[in-house]
């Protein structure tokens, strides 16, 4: 049996992979709950506005990616921040990634459990999903990056099914009124923060920057990815406004899934089951990338990056992650703790999305100045 290298430095990926990765990472779990939080029609402008901010952020990120530090990988980071700082960042990263993986996986498991397998013990679902993630992650970062294409192709077409909600009699224009808030204090900052944190994800490309083609320009691909994500958010949000109406929307826990259940097909009765199941590809892609980053951060913490990684490292991490997820599902993913965990994730990923490109740019400027 040949051992597979987890970080294969020989191949470098084109900008198009950046598009797939950034776009898919922006469409993880929060997509399903976002309309419930946004609720008011004028939050359409919120999505567009935050999308523009996200674009500005991505400009910073792509600037850094085309700098010389980025292509060096870990030594480049050490050069920028120093060994000690890197370990602090790795420790922070471990916590943030841990929360992200927990929320994303348990959120999906909850959806699957509620809509597809209500009688199944959710622990089994966690085990199955983690087994697949473990497999994808153990194939190495290069393959996980390639997997983004599959994840993209498996889930992008779903957005087309939602065109039915834009047709009468479901769609009636008054559902989108009023388009400007009557009172500015009414704007839900929590909603805007949620949009921002849902758009987070591309900052993890920093961890794989050394695998990307060093001569590539990534801004174009970031722009496409971000625009597509914002468009998808808009389509889903406007469709759910048409479908539920502003008031009723706030009462629905998973509006997107509920809408999918309303779709009809002459062949399949439950279209939603197919849609939910195909979204697993996206989840597996996201989680396996996060697990690999998690593993990398652990190795930085343990000063083991120079030594060769062991064959079992990622497997052990997956087993630990599965046990943690089962425990978290039993004790933390409950009413009051659930919202705490969601808030942590929203704040955590918002901050990483905001700070990672900013930090990198500031530090590289500083270094150059010295």
């Amino acid at each position, binding site marked *: 049996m040949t051992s597979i290298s987890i970080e294969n430095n020989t191949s470098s990926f084109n900008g198009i992979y950046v598009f797939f990765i950034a776009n898919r990472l922006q469409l993880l779990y929060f997509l399903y709950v976002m309309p419930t939080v946004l609720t008011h029609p004028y939050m359409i402008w919120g999505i567009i506005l935050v999308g523009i901010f996200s674009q500005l952020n991505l400009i910073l990120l792509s600037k850094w990616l085309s700098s010389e530090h980025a292509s060096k990988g870990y030594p480049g980071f050490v050069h920028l921040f120093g060994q000690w700082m890197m370990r602090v960042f790795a420790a922070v990263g471990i916590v943030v990634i841990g929360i992200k993986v927990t929320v994303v996986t348990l959120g999906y498991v909850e959806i699957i459990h509620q809509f597809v397998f209500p009688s199944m013990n959710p622990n089994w679902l966690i085990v199955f999903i983690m087994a697949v993630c473990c497999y994808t992650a153990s194939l190495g970062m290069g393959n996980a990056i390639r997997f983004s294409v599959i994840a993209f192709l498996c889930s992008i077409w779903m957005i087309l099914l939602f065109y039915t909600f834009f047709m009468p009699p479901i769609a009636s224009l*008054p559902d989108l009124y009023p388009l400007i808030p*009557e009172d500015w204090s009414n704007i839900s900052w929590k909603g805007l923060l949620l949009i921002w944190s849902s758009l987070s994800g591309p900052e993890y490309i920093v961890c794989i920057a050394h695998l990307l083609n060093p001569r590539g320009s990534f801004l174009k691909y970031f722009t496409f990815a971000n625009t597509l994500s914002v468009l998808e958010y808009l389509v889903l949000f406007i469709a759910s406004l048409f479908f539920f109406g502003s008031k009723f929307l706030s009462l629905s826990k998973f509006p997107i899934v509920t809408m999918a259940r309303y779709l009809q097909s002459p062949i399949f009765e439950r279209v939603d089951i197919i849609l939910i199941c195909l979204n697993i590809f996206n989840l597996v892609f996201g989680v396996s990338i996060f697990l690999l980053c998690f593993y990398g951060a652990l190795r930085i913490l343990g000063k083991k990056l120079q030594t060769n990684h062991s064959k079992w490292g990622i497997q052990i991490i997956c087993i630990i992650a599965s046990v943690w997820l089962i425990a978290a599902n039993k004790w933390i993913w409950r009413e009051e703790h659930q919202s705490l965990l969601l808030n942590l994730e929203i704040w955590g990923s918002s901050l990483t999305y905001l700070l990672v490109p900013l930090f990198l740019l500031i530090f590289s400027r500083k270094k150059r100045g010295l």
Partner: protein
Amino acid sequence: MAYLKKSIWMTIVYCVILITGCAPYLENNEIEEIAPVIFWSLDAAEEGKLEATTVVPPLVQEKKRILTMQVDLLKQSGKGFNLRYYRELKVGQLRVLLINEELAKKGLRPIINTIFTDPDISQRLYLVIVQGDVKDYIKEEIESQENLDYFLYRMLKHYERKRQGQLSIVNLHQFMQKLYSPFSDPILPVFKAENGNFNYEGTAIFQNDKLISVVTDSDDEIYQLIGNDYYLKYLPIPKLSVVLGHVRTNVDVTFNRDFTEMNFKVELKGRIDEYQGEKNLNDLDDLAEITNEINSHLETQTKAFLQKNQEWQTDPLDIGARTLTPFSRPIEKKEWREKWRNLQIKVKYQMDLEPLINIQE
């Protein structure tokens, strides 16, 4: 060799999982073991209980039988039916829910909420209000008519899909959406079970979740024209001995600035399908007179219908939603209800009628 080792390991792991009995699936979904039901009928029984009725088995070559239970809570009936029948009743294919009129008058919210939250039940479940005794009707008909339940579902489906505007078809999602909308009230179709017949009666108008009134005959026709599908294949007006055919309408509602007055303008297009009165359709003056008569008749009818709704404090036409504009503050629910009750209504019809003439006299 390595593959052999791997596969042996995998086999052992699978066997352990399967043998230990912690199989992930608890529910049995084998088609021979289950009986998906198509419809459920709910009745009010004594002492605040519910009476649930269903027919099993659906779509199988087996003699049908009717199951009835008296329960306190809705889902108890699901459990009870299971224990009485040799196959497990599944609600995944539930398509029609018949609710007794008396039950609906008490308020539907607890029942509908229970059904709405069940992930097994489709949002496209048709809701129907029934007058009379459904159980008796089914008992009588089950002998002569096979697939009674399925026919009912097909009929509702047909009218929904073709949107023929003849009856109001409402599914679970639409009902819930209107129930929770601040500006409108739900409606449901009403059927009457009597002497071996199951006939469409009209439209039930709700205030929140309580049935307030059932509009029938000409009132229901007016409702179909101005509120539901804006189309009627036949609109008979016996008083004027005329039948209008293929009637299509376009409704325009405007308000004055402080919402004290509403102009309800209806553009109506159609043809005179039948006329048995004294006047001559070939004569242009006569035709204008007939049109005028129809016009004023419809105006009075519509105005009366709208005023009835004001009296009942219901808004099945979503008129409240028409007060919304993109760039102004939306009116509060309570404020709108108050305004709606005292609104001055002006109804105007604009007719475009074509007489069907084939014989020149």
